[in-house]
C-alpha cells in the first residue's frame, strides 16, 4: 500500500508544473497527505511494543522444531517486517523529509513568505498529530544520541568546510566577544531574573517556588545559546551581506564551548545546590580547555587528513571518504573528552581544506561538495521535522508565567547584550557596526534544536521541573523560528540592509588585494607596529616554507596563490568557452572556411594575404604533429583498457583532454597570427546555444569534446591519463611548446618582445606541462548549477 502511494506520488510530482490549475495542485496535496497517513502507520505500529511479534516467531520456531517431520506448505509469499524494521523506518523518514522539501518548492507563493524551517516544523507537527490520532505511540525520534551523533555533524561539517576564512578571521575578535561574553551575559541574566520572578508571588504559592537558583541558571544556559542550524536555515534565504552573516553564524558556532561548559557546570552542581568560587574558577579553566582542546583535536585530524590526501593520486575514488571520516572522527574524539565537538569539526574542516583541495582531483572536490550539501540538507530537514514530532509527543507542563517570562527575557537579554557589546567592540573595530547591523545581529539570535536536545538530556530524577523547562524551550524555539524567522526577510528589505554581493572575484581584485597586503605589511614594518598584517604575513611565510611542502603532493606545493587562482579562472573560462559553442574558433575544421568565406579584406593587403598564410599554418602544424608523434611513438606504451573498480581510468570525458590542449594551443597561436597580420579579420562566433542544450549535449555526448584530426593519416595515441607523472606518458603540450620556439623566433622579426625566458632547461617545461595536464584533468568536470563562489577565495588572504 505504501509503495503504491510512493510510486504514484513520485510519478505525479515531476509532471506537475507551476502553471497547473488549482484542482491539480489540490490533488497533489491530497496525495501527499494520504502518503503521509500511509507511511505514518507502519512507523507507529513498529514502535509499539512488538512482543506479539516475538511470540509469534518463537511459536514458529517451536512449531518447526516439533514438527520437522511434518511437511508444511512451502510459503510462497510472507511478510517479515521485523527483519527490516529499523533501516526501513530510517529510510522512510529520510524520504519523507526529502519529499517535503520537494513539495514546498512546488507551491511558489508559500516558500517565499514562510521560511522552510517553519514549514518543516509544521509538517512534523502534522505527522506527530497523525501518529497520535492513529492511536499509536509516537516514536521517540528526538533521541539525544541520534541528534548529537548523527544529525548535527553533517550540518556543522558543511558549514566548517565551506567557512569563508578571510571574513571569519578578520572579525574573529567581534565574533568571540559575542559568542563568549554575550552567551554568558544571556545565561546569567535570564537565569537570575527567572529565579527572581519565580520567587515572587508570595500570595499564590505555586510549583515555581521549588525551583532553585542553579536549575534556573542551568535553564538560562541552555536557552541562551544561538543555534547554528536555525541561523543557517533562516539566513540562507535572506542573503544579507557577508559581514552580518559571518557575525551571527560565527557566534552560533563558537558559543558551543560556552554552552558545554556552563551546562556541565550547572548540571553537576544542581544536585548539591551550591557553587563555590573554586568551582567557578575551575569552570573558567574548563572553558579554555574545552574550546582550545576542541580546536586542537580538530586541527590534528585536519592535518592528518591533508597528509593522507597527499598520497591518494592513485586511488582517487576514495578521496572524499577520507575527508568525511577524518572529520567525523574528530567530532567523536572531541565529544569523547567532553570537549567542544562543534569547534573540533570547524577546525578540522577549515584546516584541511586548502591542502586537500590542492591534492584531490576535481571530481572528488565536486563529490565532497555535493555530498556535504546533501547530507546537511537532509539533516536539517529531519531536525525540524523531529522537532515538530517531539512537540506533539510532549510531555508538557504549561505554566503561563514561566513561559512568557522566559520568552520576554530572551528577547530583552539579547537586545541589551548586543547593544552593550557593540558599544565596547566599536572602540576596537576599524569598520564600525551601525545600528542597523546591531538590529540584525540581535534579531538573528535564533534558538533551535540544540537547546531542545540539551533540555531533553536532563535527568528527570534530578530535575522535577524538566517538563516545564522543555515546554518553555519549545515555546522559545517556536517563537524565534516562526515569528523572527518569518519577519526577518521583510525587515531586511524595510531597513535596506546591504545584501550579499555577487562575489565573482576577478583577477584584478586578486592581484590588487595581494599587492595591498604587501603594502600594508611594509607600512606596518616601517611604523614598527606588529599588527594584523605582520602576523598574517609571517603565517603565510611559514605556511609556504614548511607546511605546504609536507601536505601537498608534487609540484603544486610550490605554486603561488595567484597562479593557482589564475589557472582556476582560465579553466573555468575555457570550459565556458567550449560549452557556449565557441568551437568555431577551432582551427581544425576551419582552414578552408576561414580563408574563403569569412575574410573580407577592405583593401588588398600589401604583405602576406591571409588566404595563403592560414593554410600554410595548418600544413605546417600537420607536419609538426606528424613529426612529434613519430618521434615519440617509441616512448609511448599503449595501455589496455580494462575495467577496474579501483583505478580511475580516464573516461571519454577526459580523453578529450589532450585534444583540448592541442586545440587551446592552436587557438592561442591562431589568434596571435591573426591579430598581427590583419586587424580586420574577424571570425564570427556561432550563436550561443541555450545553456540547457549545451549542457545536455555535453553531458550526454562526451565525444563533443573530441575534434577531428587535421588529417586522417595522423595516428592517434591513447594515453592513460591516470598517472600523468609516469615517464611513459607523452606531454604533448610540452612537445608543442618546444616545437613552437624556433617558429616563434623566425616569425616575430618585427615584434618587440623581450627574449623569452621560457627557453630554459627542459625540466621546468616538463613539470609545467605535466602540471597543466594534471590541472586540466582535475578541472574537466561539471562545474555544477550553482557554483559556490566562496570557494574562489584563497586560503590565507
Amino acid at each position, binding site marked *: 500500500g505504501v509503495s503504491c502511494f510512493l510510486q504514484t506520488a513520485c510519478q505525479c510530482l515531476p509532471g506537475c508544473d507551476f502553471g497547473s490549475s488549482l484542482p491539480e495542485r489540490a490533488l497533489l496535496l491530497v496525495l501527499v497527505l494520504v502518503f503521509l497517513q500511509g507511511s505514518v502507520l507502519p512507523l507507529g505500529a513498529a514502535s509499539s511494543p512488538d512482543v506479539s511479534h516475538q511470540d509469534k516467531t518463537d511459536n514458529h520456531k517451536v512449531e518447526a522444531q516439533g514438527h520437522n517431520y511434518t511437511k508444511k506448505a512451502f510459503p510462497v509469499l510472507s511478510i517479515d517486517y521485523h527483519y527490516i524494521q529499523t533501516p526501513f523506518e530510517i529510510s522512510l523518514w529520510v524520504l519523507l523529509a526529502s519529499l517535503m522539501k520537494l513539495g514546498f518548492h512546488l507551491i511558489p507563493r508559500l516558500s517565499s513568505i514562510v521560511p522552510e524551517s517553519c514549514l518543516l516544523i509544521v509538517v512534523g507537527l502534522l505527522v506527530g498529530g497523525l501518529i497520535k490520532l492513529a492511536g499509536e505511540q509516537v516514536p521517540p525520534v528526538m533521541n539525544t544520541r541520534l541528534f548529537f551523533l548523527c544529525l548535527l555533524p553533517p550540518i556543522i561539517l558543511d558549514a566548517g568546510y565551506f567557512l569563508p576564512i578571510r571574513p571569519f578571521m578578520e572579525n574573529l575578535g567581534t565574533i568571540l566577544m559575542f559568542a563568549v561574553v554575550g552567551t554568558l551575559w544571556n545565561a546569567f541574566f535570564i537565569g537570575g531574573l527567572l529565579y527572581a520572578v519565580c520567587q515572587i508571588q508570595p500570595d499564590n504559592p505555586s510549583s515555581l517556588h521549588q525551583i532553585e537558583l542553579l536549575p534556573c541558571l542551568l535553564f538560562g544556559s541552555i536557552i541562551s545559546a544561538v543555534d547554528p542550524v536555525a541561523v543557517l536555515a533562516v539566513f540562507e534565504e535572506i542573503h544579507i551581506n557577508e559581514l552580518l552573516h559571518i557575525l551571527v553564524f560565527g557566534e552560533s558556532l563558537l558559543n558551543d564551548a560556552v554552552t558545554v561548559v556552563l551546562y556541565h557546570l550547572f548540571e553537576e552542581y544542581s544536585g548539591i545546590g551550591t557553587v563555590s568560587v573554586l568551582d567557578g574558577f575551575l569552570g573558567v579553566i574548563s572553558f579554555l580547555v574545552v574550546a582550545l582542546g576542541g580546536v586542537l583535536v580538530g586541527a590534528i585530524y585536519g592535518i592528518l587528513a591533508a597528509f593522507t590526501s597527499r598520497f591518494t593520486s592513485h586511488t582517487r575514488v576514495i578521496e572524499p571518504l577520507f575527508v568525511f571520516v577524518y572529520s567525523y572522527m574528530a567530532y567523536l574524539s572531541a565529544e569523547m573528552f567532553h570537549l567542544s565537538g562543534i569547534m573540533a569539526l570547524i577546525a578540522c574542516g577549515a584546516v584541511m581544506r586548502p591542502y586537500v583541495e590542492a591534492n584531490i582531483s576535481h571530481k572528488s572536490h565536486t563529490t565532497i561538495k555535493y555530498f556535504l550539501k546533501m547530507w546537511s540538507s537532509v539533516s536539517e530537514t529531519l531536525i525540524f521535522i523531529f522537532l515538530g514530532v517531539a512537540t506533539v509527543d510532549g510531555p508538557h507542563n504549561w505554566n503561563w508565567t514561566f513561559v512568557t517570562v522566559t520568552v520576554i527575557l530572551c528577547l530583552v537579554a539579547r537586545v541589551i547584550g548586543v547593544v552593550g557589546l557593540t558599544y565596547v567592540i566599536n572602540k576596537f573595530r576599524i569598520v564600525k557596526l551601525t545600528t542597523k547591523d546591531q538590529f540584525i545581529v540581535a534579531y538573528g539570535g535564533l534558538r533551535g534544536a540544540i537547546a531542545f536536545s540539551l533540555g531533553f538530556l536532563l535527568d528527570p530524577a534530578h530535575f522535577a521541573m524538566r517538563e516545564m523547562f522543555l515546554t518553555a524551550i519549545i515555546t522559545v524555539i517556536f517563537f524565534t523560528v516562526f515569528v523572527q524567522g518569518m519577519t526577518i526577510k521583510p525587515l531586511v528589505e524595510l531597513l535596506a540592509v546591504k545584501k550579499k554581493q555577487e562575489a565573482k572575484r*576577478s*583577477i*584584478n581584485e586578486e*592581484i590588487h588585494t595581494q599587492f595591498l597586503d604587501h*603594502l600594508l*605589511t611594509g607600512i606596518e614594518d616601517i611604523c614598527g607596529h606588529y599588527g594584523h598584517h605582520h602576523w598574517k604575513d609571517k603565517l603565510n611565510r611559514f605556511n609556504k616554507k614548511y607546511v605546504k611542502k609536507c601536505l601537498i603532493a608534487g609540484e603544486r606545493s610550490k605554486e*603561488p596563490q*595567484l597562479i593557482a587562482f589564475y589557472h582556476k579562472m582560465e579553466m573555468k573560462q575555457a570550459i565556458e568557452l567550449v560549452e557556449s559553442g565557441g568551437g568555431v574558433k577551432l582551427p581544425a575544421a576551419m582552414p578552408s572556411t576561414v580563408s574563403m568565406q569569412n575574410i573580407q579584406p577592405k583593401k588588398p593587403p600589401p604583405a602576406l594575404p591571409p588566404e595563403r598564410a592560414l593554410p600554410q599554418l595548418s600544413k605546417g602544424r600537420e607536419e609538426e604533429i606528424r613529426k612529434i608523434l613519430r618521434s615519440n611513438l617509441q616512448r609511448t606504451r599503449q595501455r589496455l583498457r580494462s575495467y577496474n573498480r579501483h583505478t580511475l581510468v580516464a573516461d571519454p570525458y577526459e580523453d578529450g583532454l589532450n585534444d583540448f590542449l592541442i586545440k587551446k594551443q592552436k587557438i592561442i597561436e591562431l589568434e596571435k597570427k591573426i591579430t598581427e597580420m590583419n586587424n580586420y579579420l574577424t571570425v564570427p562566433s556561432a550563436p550561443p546555444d541555450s545553456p540547457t542544450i549545451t549542457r545536455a549535449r555535453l553531458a550526454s555526448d562526451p565525444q563533443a569534446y573530441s575534434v577531428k584530426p587535421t588529417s586522417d593519416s595522423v595516428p592517434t595515441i591513447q594515453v592513460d591519463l591516470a598517472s600523468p607523472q609516469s615517464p611513459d606518458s607523452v606531454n604533448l603540450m610540452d612537445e608543442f611548446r618546444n616545437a613552437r620556439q624556433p617558429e616563434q623566433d623566425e616569425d616575430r622579426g618585427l615584434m618587440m618582445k623581450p627574449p623569452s625566458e621560457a627557453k630554459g632547461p627542459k625540466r621546468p617545461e616538463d613539470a609545467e606541462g605535466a602540471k597543466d595536464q594534471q590541472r586540466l584533468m582535475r578541472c574537466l568536470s561539471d562545474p555544477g548549477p550553482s557554483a559556490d563562489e566562496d570557494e574562489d577565495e584563497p586560503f590565507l588572504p
Partner: protein
Amino acid sequence: MKISPAHIIRLYDRFEFLDKEGSGQLRLEDFAEVKELAMNPIGDRIIGAFFSPGQETVDFPSFVRILAHFRPTDKNRAKDSTQPEPVNSRTSKLKFAFQLYDQDRDGKISRAELLQVLREMLGMQVTEEQLESIADRAIQEADLDRDDAISFEEFRKSLEKVNIEHKMSIRFLR
C-alpha cells in the same frame, strides 16, 4: 578627526629610531635598515613612495603625511565639497596605491608596469609567459576604454567590491 598628540609622539619616536644619524631627515639607507622590508616583494616601491620626486630625504612632516593615508576612514564625515578630500578617504587611499603601480606618473598603469609588479610579487616561481598571460587578462578585464592601460577610474572600478577602508587602514594610526 585629527591625529591625536599621543600618536604623533609615537610616530616621532619611530622616526628618531629609524634616523640613525640623527639628522632629522630619513634617507634611503635608513629605510633599508628595516629588515622586514627587504623580504617584502614591493619593499622598494613602498620606500620610494615616501620620497617626493627629486628629493633624497624625508622629513618628519612628509613621513607623517604619507602614513596618514592609512588612518581609518571617518565614515560619518559630512560630504562637504568645498573642503579638500581628506588624506585618508577611500579615494585618497586608492590614489596612493595607484601611484605605487604607476611609477612613471603618467596617470595610467601600462602593461609593462603591471608586468613589473607581477614579476616582483611572483618572482622566480613562474615563467615569463604565465606572467604575461596574467597581465593580459588583468588588463582585458579592467580596461574599459581599450587603451591597453588601466587608468585611475578603471582601477577604482575594479576594486569597488573590496573593502578598501578596512584593507588599507592601520588601527595604530587612528
